[in-house]
C-alpha cells in the first residue's frame, strides 16, 4: 500500500489537483481572449461538455483505481472531482440556456420534450444536482453514510445519460462518444463484478455451518 502523509495530501496534492481541474476552463478563457474561432458558442459548448463527461468518468474511476493500486487516500479527491464534473456540467447547461436559447423558456421546454439528446443531457445534469447539493460535510453527516451512498449512485445514471446524450447528438462517426461509452462500461463493469463476487462470497459463507 502506498501511503501519503496527510499534510502532503491536504496542502500539496489537493490544491494542485484543484488547479489542474481548472485547466480546461483556463484554456477556454485564454482562447476566448485570443480567438475562439468562427463559432465561439459551439467551442464553449463542446469543450464544457467534453470535460463534464471526462470528470464524471474520472470520478467513477477513483474507486477502482484506489482498490487496484492500493492507494486508499485517492478517495480524498473524489468529492472534488465530482464537483468539477458538476461545475463543467453547469457551465455546459448555462451555455445552452443563455447563449443558445437566450433564456427562452418555451423554446427550452420544447427542446427537452422533443429532442431526445437534450432530454438525456438534462437528465444527466439533473442527476448531478442532488449530489452536488448534498456534498457538504454537514449534509453527509445529516444523511448518514448509507443513505448518502445510495443517493450518490445517481452518478451511474448521470454518466450513462451523458454518454447517451453525446451518442445521440453526433450526426455521423460515433468513435468519440463510443470511446466514452466503452470507458463507462469498464468502470460500471468493475462495480458489477465486485458486487457479484461479494454476493457469491456472502452466499457461500451463509451455506457453511457456523463454526462451533
Amino acid at each position: 500500500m502506498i501511503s501519503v502523509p496527510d499534510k502532503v495530501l491536504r496542502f500539496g496534492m489537493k490544491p494542485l489537483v484543484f488547479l489542474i481541474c481548472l485547466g480546461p476552463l483556463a484554456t477556454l478563457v485564454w482562447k476566448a481572449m485570443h480567438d475562439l474561432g468562427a463559432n465561439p458558442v459551439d467551442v464553449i459548448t463542446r469543450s464544457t461538455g467534453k470535460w463534464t463527461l471526462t470528470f464524471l468518468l474520472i470520478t467513477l474511476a477513483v474507486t477502482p483505481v484506489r482498490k487496484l493500486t492500493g492507494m486508499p487516500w485517492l478517495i480524498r479527491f473524489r468529492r472534488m472531482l465530482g464537483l468539477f464534473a458538476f461545475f463543467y456540467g453547469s457551465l455546459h447547461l448555462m451555455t445552452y440556456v443563455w447563449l443558445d436559447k437566450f433564456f427562452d423558456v418555451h423554446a427550452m421546454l420544447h427542446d427537452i420534450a422533443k429532442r431526445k439528446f437534450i432530454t438525456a443531457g438534462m437528465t444527466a445534469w439533473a442527476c448531478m444536482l442532488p449530489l452536488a447539493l448534498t456534498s457538504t460535510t454537514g449534509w453527509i453527516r445529516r444523511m448518514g453514510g448509507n443513505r448518502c451512498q445510495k443517493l450518490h449512485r445517481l452518478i451511474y445514471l448521470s454518466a450513462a445519460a451523458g454518454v447517451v446524450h453525446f451518442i445521440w447528438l453526433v450526426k455521423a462517426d460515433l468513435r468519440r462518444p463510443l470511446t466514452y461509452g466503452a470507458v463507462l462500461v469498464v468502470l460500471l463493469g468493475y462495480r458489477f463484478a465486485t458486487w457479484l463476487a461479494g454476493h457469491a462470497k456472502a452466499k457461500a459463507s451463509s451455506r457453511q455451518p457456523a463454526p462451533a
Partner: protein
Amino acid sequence: MLIKKPNDVPSSEITSKSTYMNRRRFMTGALVTGAAVATGLYIRKNDDGQVSTPGSVEASGEKLSGIVKSQYSTTEKPTSLKDITNYNNYYEFSTDKYEPAGLAKNFRTRPWTVSLDGLVKKPRRIDIDSLLKIAPLEERIYRHRCVEGWSMVIPWVGIPLSALIKQADPLPSAKFVAFETVMAPDQMPNQKRDVLQWPYVEGLRMDEAMHPLAILAVGLYDEVLPNVDGAPLRLVVPWKYGFKGIKAIVKVKFVDKMPPTTWNIMASNEYGFYSNVNPNVDHPRWSQKKERRIGDSLFAPKHDTLMFNGYGDQVASLYNGMDLRKDF
C-alpha cells in the same frame, strides 16, 4: 483514565480554515472565471469587429478576372473570409468543422475533369479550365444556412448550373440531376473509413437545377475557390440546407428517377431529398426556427430563419401543390 482536553487534539486533525473555505472558494472561483470568459469573449468580439475586414486574412488564392455582379446578390454584410474558410463541414476530410481547412490544403484540383452523362444528347467530359469559360463568372452573394443551425453570407463566384446543363443537352426524359464528389481516399482521409457512404452524392430535380439561383461555384471573394470550400467546383443552392451543396464534383448524371443522396441514405428521417430551408419543419435534433449568424457577437440574438432561406419569392413556385412537411 484518559480524558482528552481540547488542546490534546493534534493540530493535523483540526480542519484548517483554508480547507473549510475550500468549497466556498470553489464556487466564488467558478463565478469569477465564468465572468472572465464572458468578458474575454466580449472584448474579443468587439476588437474583431473593428480590426478584421473581410478578405484580409490568408487571401492566398489566385485572383479571378472578368467577374460580373448579379441581381441575385444580397446586400447583407458578407462573413469574413477567415470564418468562411475555417469553419465548415467537409466530411471527406474530417467530421470536425475546424479541421478541413488544414487537411484540404494540399488537395489537388488539377488536372480535373467533369463528366456529363446519362439521359443526354451530348455526353461529354469537360476540363475544369474550359468549364470556367462556358459562361461569364458572376459574383453571387448568397445567404448560406447549415442544417445545424448556423448561417453565413458568402460572396461566391460561379456560373449558373443551367449553363453546364445546356452543354449536355438533356433528353426530355431526364427528370433529375445527380452529382458525385471525387473519390480520392489518398487525399481525403475519411474516405478510407465508413463515416458516410462514399463517394458523396447529391441531386436536384431538373427544374430546381435549371433555376437561375442554382450555381456552380468556382470562386470566393473574387479568388479561386479554396480547397476547403469544395474546389475546384461545388454546387450552391442557396434556398436549401448547406449539405445539398456537394463539393469537388466530378460527375453530373441525368436520370429519370429521384437519385439517392448521401445524408438521406445516412438518416432518411432527418434529411430529405429536397431539404429546403424551412423554419416550420424541425430537424429531429435541432429547431430550425432560428440560426446563429457566424461572425455575430457571442451575445447577439440569433436570426429568425426564413422560409426557403429568404429566397421564397424566386423559388416557392417550384413547390406548388407539394406538402413540404412530407417532402422535407
